[in-house]
């Protein structure tokens, strides 16, 4: 399971030639950007209240919104109005100014009321448990897992991004062994494959080990470290640790070597957590041909969306971070001439209760609205449908406005993966519940 690549014994090689195997496998400049595809996930940890990301502004919807949202209702003056391609008025919460702008310039689309589902589900079916219901609804950990695995019932050891990486590896779509799935936000189940391991790096961090020189003593110490990684003591946790360290050493120089060849990006990224993560992603996309990559999946995240109290002030901080980082990233892909080759999308634990809590916040809910951004996106449109804003209404699980999703994660992911180059014949193995839904592609990527 953990011998993704056998670590090569380094012997007496000088440090300068260590881990060069990967470069040897890369045909010089064999890859061009033209066939390249990257998916970039931005996970909003904690459960974004997407009821306040975008609001339908037709009279009936907005009145219903104001009536039920109470202290969380955003006045029209704080909503940046846009018009969908179908001519309907919507408003983005004004701290999402750049997002609203990209919607208007048709680079960004919204997919409404997406969430974890086994199969289509009605309120009556949910309340009487007449159809399969995802496990442990409204729990952070479980709903994160369901977004990341696209498996609504039972534990999945692999994420859907990891299964995509497995497919890429099986098809030999990348010309190097550099990992297809790369996280700049720590380990994530989304990137766990059955046959592939994800790589997690810190933005701006290096994987190259400190403290080694070309001296004989240093070389002996290096040999001790690396030789030990090749041994199997039979202890499963030790093997797992060895595998991770080997991967780090394997990929360190390839990454540093490639990044060292890149000209600095002209695009300025905000000095925020997400800004720095997306800058790192842009820099790796910039050197995809040097790394030998034609298909990559990236994972970023930003936290603190668990707004049980004081929600609007929190969103006033988080939304500008999200909006500005997405805009900078899109600009960077334009600068690289790769805007058509990169699609960015959001995920989040869940949406939040439409009804507020007593502390001007909201509790854990279910279906929510998501953003998809990129040159290939048919933007300026709303895909899927908004719920009826009625507590205890047709889309509510109970009486607090926890929307039953009308679009599944499987459909959302399959639409992204279809553009990424996964054939429909392989889609059911990546999204096992996709077969339960009649629409397999939502249309936001053609």
């Amino acid at each position, binding site marked *: 399971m953990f011998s993704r690549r056998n670590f090569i014994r380094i012997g007496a090689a000088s440090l300068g030639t260590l881990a060069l195997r990967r470069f040897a496998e890369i045909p010089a400049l064999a890859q061009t950007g033209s066939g390249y595809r990257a998916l970039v996930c931005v996970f909003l940890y904690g459960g974004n209240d997407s009821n306040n990301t975008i609001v339908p502004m037709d009279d009936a919807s907005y009145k219903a919104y104001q009536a039920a949202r109470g202290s969380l209702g955003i006045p029209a003056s704080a909503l940046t109005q846009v018009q969908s391609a179908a001519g309907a008025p919507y408003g983005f919460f004004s701290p999402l100014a750049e997002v609203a702008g990209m919607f208007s310039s048709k680079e960004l689309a919204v997919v409404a009321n997406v969430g974890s589902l086994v199969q289509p589900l009605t309120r009556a079916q949910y309340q009487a448990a007449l159809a399969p219901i995802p496990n442990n609804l*409204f729990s952070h950990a479980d709903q994160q897992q369901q977004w990341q695995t696209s498996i609504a019932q039972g534990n999945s050891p692999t994420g859907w991004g990891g299964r995509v990486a497995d497919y890429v590896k099986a098809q030999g779509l990348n010309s190097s062994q550099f990992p297809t799935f790369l996280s700049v936000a720590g380990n994530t189940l989304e990137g766990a494959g059955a046959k592939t391991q994800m790589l997690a790096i810190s933005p701006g961090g290096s994987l190259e080990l400190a403290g080694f020189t070309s001296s004989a003593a240093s070389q002996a110490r290096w040999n001790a470290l690396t030789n030990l990684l090749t041994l199997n003591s039979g*202890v*499963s946790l030790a093997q797992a640790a060895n595998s991770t360290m080997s991967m780090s050493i394997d990929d360190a120089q390839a990454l540093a070597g490639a990044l060292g060849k890149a000209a600095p990006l002209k695009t300025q990224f905000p000095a925020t957590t997400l800004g720095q993560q997306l800058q790192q992603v842009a820099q790796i996309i910039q050197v995809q041909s040097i790394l030998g990559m034609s298909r990559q999946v990236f994972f970023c995240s930003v936290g603190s969306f668990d707004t049980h109290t004081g929600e609007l002030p929190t969103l006033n901080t988080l939304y500008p971070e999200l909006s500005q980082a997405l805009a900078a990233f899109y600009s960077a892909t334009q600068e690289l001439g790769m805007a058509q080759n990169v699609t960015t999308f959001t995920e989040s634990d869940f949406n939040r209760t439409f009804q507020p809590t007593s502390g001007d916040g909201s509790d854990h809910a279910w279906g929510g609205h998501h953003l998809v951004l990129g040159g290939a996106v048919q933007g300026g449109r709303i895909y899927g449908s908004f719920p009826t804003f009625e507590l205890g209404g047709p889309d509510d699980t109970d009486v607090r406005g926890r929307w039953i999703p009308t679009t599944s994660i499987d459909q959302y992911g399959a639409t992204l993966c279809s553009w990424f180059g996964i054939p429909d014949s392989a889609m059911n193995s990546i999204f096992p519940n996709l077969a339960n839904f009649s629409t397999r592609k939502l249309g936001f990527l053609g």
Partner: protein
Amino acid sequence: MKRLPVFFVISAAFLAPSINAQTAAVMTDRAAARFLDQAAWGPTAASIAELQQMGIAGWLSAQFALNTSDLPDQPLVASSGQANRNLAPVQAAFFQNAVTGQDQLRQRVAFALSEMWVVSAVSTKDAYAFPPYWRLFRDNAFGNYRDIMKALTLSPAMGNYLNMANNNKGNAAQGTAANENYARELMQLFTIGLTQLNSDGSAVVDSSGNPAPTYDQSVVTNTARALTGWTYPTAPHATAKNNNPAYYFGQMFAVEAEHDTTSKSIIGGATVPAGQTAGQDLDSVLDALMAQKTMAPFVSRQLIQHLVTSHPSPAYIQRVSGVFLDNGSGVRGDMKAVITAILTDPEARAGDDSSAAPNPNFGHLREPVLFLANILRGLNATLGASSAIYNNAANLGQELFYPPTVFSYFSPLYTLENGDPAPEFQIYSAQTATNRADVVNTILYGALDKSTAINLTPFEQSDVSSMVNYISYVFLHHAMSSDLQQAAIGAAAAATGTKAQAQAALYAVLTSSEYQIAQ
């Protein structure tokens, strides 16, 4: 893995007590060091000797009585006049306590509890909130779990972090409902979890094999209503209000006007009758949770994982759960009994005999704080009040008092790709693996902050194989594999001078998976 026989070629100055200990009843160095890896922040030559002298029972009873470590209270306001958010002195004191404090077991248990009952400075930002919050774990570590539940529930830091403070009853006119945050996490993370468990930790399943949930959304909603009506302690010279502003000394108090007095149907089908006070409702909720047998394996498994092994056998969990349910005198939740059961269990102690085959699924990855404390203790470190070693822990994914979410730094449910539980691996990535090796480099080769110093003198021995054997004694329970010994000797032999040799051998050992995984 080949294990080397236990040698006694080590400098007698560091081992005198163990060499004098010749009766069969005395623990071996290996057994004592292993025990101290589980029950303390790691063994030292002195603590090994002490344990050998006292025996496990004597050591445990001495440790149960010790309560020597504190974290310094912090000012509410910084010199800038702004709210004080600087936790550095608290983080530094934490490491000082870990490296040199006497109440080692209390600290380990308190830390484990703090990783279950999470409050994070990510959103509860006032530095002064944390020493009082930490003392709740310290002072209740060897008490009863029911007391821990109540103390943490009424902690103003927790009240802030999970919004039980100022959680007013629902208001129809304003269209609000009681905040569900604390009610949900109290059940999901702190006491019983999402799935009903058998006493061996396995899931209770229904006739179709689906795990049986412990509660549904209506129980969360009802429990949230039962827990309404609490506010922060009133600050000195302030006037009490129904919704006090945040203040972190003392306990939250009840405001009956904001408490929902209707009846509620809560966990296990229990009913909280109408008309009770906030305090009575709280006790009803905690009693109903305490009555759930699922709590015993839920809490026991996590404590085992933090102290001993990521992957306890069902039988091990069952034995500890049994003690949690009944300490032998009919008391449920007796932490002394539970901790004793965890540390003296045959599965925990099986590896004490170096001739026994190692259990390939045993042990856990040393989490960053434990990893650093263990290394510093082994290297005879001295930490001044401004030691910044906590920055190194942060760099490895564990910034003290700043877990990223209420799910702490890592989840007890995290598994390797083969399905084996391995919580600490959630924060072990290519990046943090590299950073671990780099912090070992920093510690050994001398670029630590000015307030943190190590002493390598005991390791500076002219005979390289004796030196490596001493490393084995300090860091690997005197049972370093022959492979690792060879690697360490190879690294040392190429270096010049006893200090450089010790550094090279220590680098090879402390970066190895054999050390990183405490077996």
